[in-house]
């Protein structure tokens, strides 16, 4: 029996009481996904509780982004289900999932490159407010003062205030990441999924992002965060799941994960904790 399997058994033993957590918002149930024979995800179970910051860590290619893709409807799992707040997300299209209150911050920034920073943030705000299709060819975009004010505030929060009228394509990679974050935040989602929000940022900017995410936490937003930077993980996470080779090999509080020798062996060994 491999190390991973032993740990997995431990986790499975825990599942008994985990599955009747009353305040869980996201429930990932036995999700499988393989790409042409490569098992990107196998038997993944995960519960995220209301208001917590749940970190998912694991080596490159562990399946972390794939897991988020399954959650937001980008990828259909081969098996298993994702339930959010009582609604099954599997089988729903991305816009429906977003309208249920799940927003995603992408690993490789996916912003509207031709639009300005302000417009990039106002569009998700409009979609949150208007929801379904609205044919409003005579409602001036520039007349949306309320949404613009809010967008400006969020842009200032992520530190892009002096780039507000720049075209997104002219932003640096790190700035695009902040823009991504702003686009997620302005929607006030019930659940925010963050895929390496600080990758490529300098330490100073990383700390600013940590502070920002802490502030949001105080507002009660539930977050799932994928991170390689252990400083970020241990500053923010209430609970941590470790994904390796498409399997959850450990789950617990930061202390438990830090002291779990098998996790160290499987993953943390590569990093300076």
């Amino acid at each position, binding site marked *: 029996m491999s190390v991973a399997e032993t740990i997995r058994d431990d986790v499975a033993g825990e599942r008994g009481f985990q599955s009747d957590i009353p305040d869980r918002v996201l429930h990932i149930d036995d999700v499988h996904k393989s790409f042409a024979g490569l098992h990107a995800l196998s038997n993944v179970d995960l519960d995220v509780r209301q208001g917590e910051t749940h970190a998912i860590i694991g080596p490159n290619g562990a399946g972390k982004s794939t897991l988020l893709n399954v959650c937001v409807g980008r990828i259909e799992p081969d098996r298993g289900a994702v339930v959010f707040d009582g609604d099954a997300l599997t089988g729903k299209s991305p816009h429906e999932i*977003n309208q249920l209150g799940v927003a995603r911050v992408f690993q490789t920034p996916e912003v509207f490159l031709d639009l300005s920073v302000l*417009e990039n943030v106002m569009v998700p705000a409009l*979609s949150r407010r208007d929801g379904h299709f609205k044919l409003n060819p*005579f*409602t001036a975009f520039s007349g949306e003062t309320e949404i613009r004010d809010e967008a400006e505030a969020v842009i200032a929060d992520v530190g892009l205030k002096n780039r507000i009228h720049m075209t997104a394509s002219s932003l640096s990679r790190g700035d695009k990441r902040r823009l991504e974050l702003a686009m997620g935040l302005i929607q006030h989602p019930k659940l925010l999924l963050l895929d390496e929000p600080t990758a490529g940022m300098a330490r100073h900017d990383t700390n600013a992002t940590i502070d920002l995410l802490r502030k949001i936490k105080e507002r009660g937003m539930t977050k799932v965060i994928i991170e390689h930077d252990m400083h970020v993980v241990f500053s923010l996470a209430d609970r941590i799941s470790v994904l390796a080779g498409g399997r959850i090999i450990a789950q617990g509080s930061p202390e438990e994960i830090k002291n779990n020798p098998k996790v160290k062996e499987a993953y943390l060994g590569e990093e300076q904790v």
Partner: protein
Amino acid sequence: MLGTFSRSDWLLLVIFSAVVLTLPWTLEPIGAAYPDLLQKFAIYGIFAVGFNILFGLTGYLSFGHAAFLGVGSYAAVWSFKLLTMNVLPALALSIAIAGVFALLIGYISLRRAGIYFSILTLAFAQMSYNLAYSVLTPITNGETGLQVRAIRKSAEVSLRDGDVRIIDQALGIPEVGVPITNLFGMKMSGYPGFYFCAVLLIVCFFIAMCISRSNFGMMLKAIKSNQNRLNYTGIHTRPYLIAAFVISGMYAGLAGSLLSITDPIAGAERMQWTASGEVVLMTILGGAGTLVGPVLGAGLIKYAEQKVSSWNEGILHGAFSFLPEPVQDFVVEFFSFFVGEGWHLTLGLMFMIIVIFLPGGVMEGFRRLRRAFANGASPPPRPVATTTPIAERD
């Protein structure tokens, strides 16, 4: 909406209107100030402005918009035959039918994006074109084209032609020979026809301006920029695309209607793929995504078409008469490929030059000129000079 139009928006609208309405004088020197051509400018301007709502804002390249132009033309002539020679019902009917038609085609074509979308629209337009020549001959009158005829003495013949003009007859409007299109008695050919088209162009331009400044327009731009991302932002993009497609189809229907209003005969060639390609050229030549560009492109192409296709070897000999005889013969021989019947060759070349050297079209050219003047002789600054890559900071 109007309250939020900025001063420069108003200025643009006023200048645009002024330029359009004074064309009969300003185009005099280049020999383009005759009603036929002026009407074409305005009509194809409308066609291109509408096409730009789809292509310029969403980036979806339709290769079948001529179908809506054709549908609009036929609908207008039928309105003249069945209802009245007054142009207003014809306009309404054309826009409505083109809209329904666009909804149908758009609903199916927009299941795909990119090249597949373009090909679907092209296929639909070619189907319409062929149907107009074959099965639908009772409606389109096939190759002869659909036209207005006088009401005959024998009710039976009139009914067979379809020329009954119920409304005109009910109102007791007398008819002598083949009646002409009119707006409450004012004839709609010649200069009045141009002004009618010009006013509609201004209205259409204004609506396009509202759309491009609206929330709806912003969603369309976001679709062009990154449709996938917009989905993850909670927007179901298809209804927006269908709406844009239908609106631009209605613009095309209106343009088709005006073609019939100024010259009440409708033929299937208006639906041919070359006509669809032409509006693509107009939009790109002028500057896709800009407000004024498509109108400019339409004007340029219609003007060039009129001029270049009327040139012949005689005119070329005149133009190159300063050259010695043998050289002159050679040069004229060469250029004669590009004039008259060969005008499409010129059009193709023009288009290639624009796409390669000025992909933003004429409007992009203006912007570059303005920048060059603003900077004087100094080279333009790097546009992203204000951002430093994150790694280089600290």
